[in-house]
């Protein structure tokens, strides 16, 4: 019985690694840049993080004499906004999942027809 050499397998592994190394390097660089944004330990911020709508848009508008008005339906009261966000996320997530399933089941139907 012929014993297979380990060399081709190692070579394949090396070539595969080499081909992917650029991609990995780019991913690693992106991770290093964005990691401080998601790691709380790197935080230098205050306890509450306001949105840029407040810290940039409303701040500069105020400096130039323009104030934000109360929205038509003001849900920014207590925990109401949190609840509305949760509701919107749930409905949006359900819709995304529902249509995604339709998209993928179409693929199954198509492949069955082709057979």
């Amino acid at each position, binding site marked *: 019985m012929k014993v297979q050499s380990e060399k081709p397998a190692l070579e394949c592994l090396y070539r595969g690694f080499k081909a992917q190394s650029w991609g990995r390097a780019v991913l690693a660089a992106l991770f290093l*840049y*964005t990691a401080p944004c998601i790691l709380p330990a790197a935080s230098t911020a205050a306890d509450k*993080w306001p949105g840029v*709508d407040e810290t940039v848009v409303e701040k500069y508008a105020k400096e130039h004499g323009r104030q934000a008005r109360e929205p038509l339906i003001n849900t920014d009261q207590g925990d109401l906004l949190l609840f509305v966000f949760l509701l919107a996320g749930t409905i949006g*997530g359900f819709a*995304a999942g529902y249509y995604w399933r339709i*998209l993928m089941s179409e693929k199954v139907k198509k492949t069955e027809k082709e057979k």
Partner: protein
Amino acid sequence: MHISEGILPWNWALLWFVVAMPFAGYGLYRLKKLSNEDLSFKPLVGVMAAVVFIISCMPIPVPTAGTCSHPCGTGISGILLGPAISILITAAALLIQALFLAHGGLSTWGADIVSMGVVGSFAGYFTFKALRAVKINMAVAGFMAGLLADWATYLTTSAELASGIRGDSPFLPLFWKIVIAFMPTQLPLGILEGAITSGMVVLLYKKRPDLLVKMGVV
């Protein structure tokens, strides 16, 4: 990038509304036309509408800047559905956010559609098409499209805000001041949006290459 209710003077708010409406109208026309031709395209519109809505109201904290902000999602919808329909679904998402989520406003709806919908969708679409035309890898083209769509949106918001609130002060210094204020948050978030866009384009290409061919993406 949501400009809150009342921030823009009425004449500027009206101008952006007038600019935005023909794009949204054309989006509606394209949606009807494509739906009449092929019903199987509707689920993709449904997925993208949900994705744009969720992504554009999902606050992501950026501790290094001490603030939080959101990606836009219009890069990916611009690539997959074309800019016109992408603008339409963005307009719908922004209207719901202005009405129920205290994000943006009804008077500033037009300005928000122009920055996120029109500029974001076209920036994503043209970047992807241009990079694919010179045979750039799909993942890289998707990444750059998402990144530039995000940054272009915030540049437009800066221009809209600076032109609306400047009064007698010169436009450019205020515009750059706002752009620089956005940078610490939007530079990393743009990269994140690029990664999301790239991942979604590649995932859809792997799962439903026929759909991307039909939509003219590849």
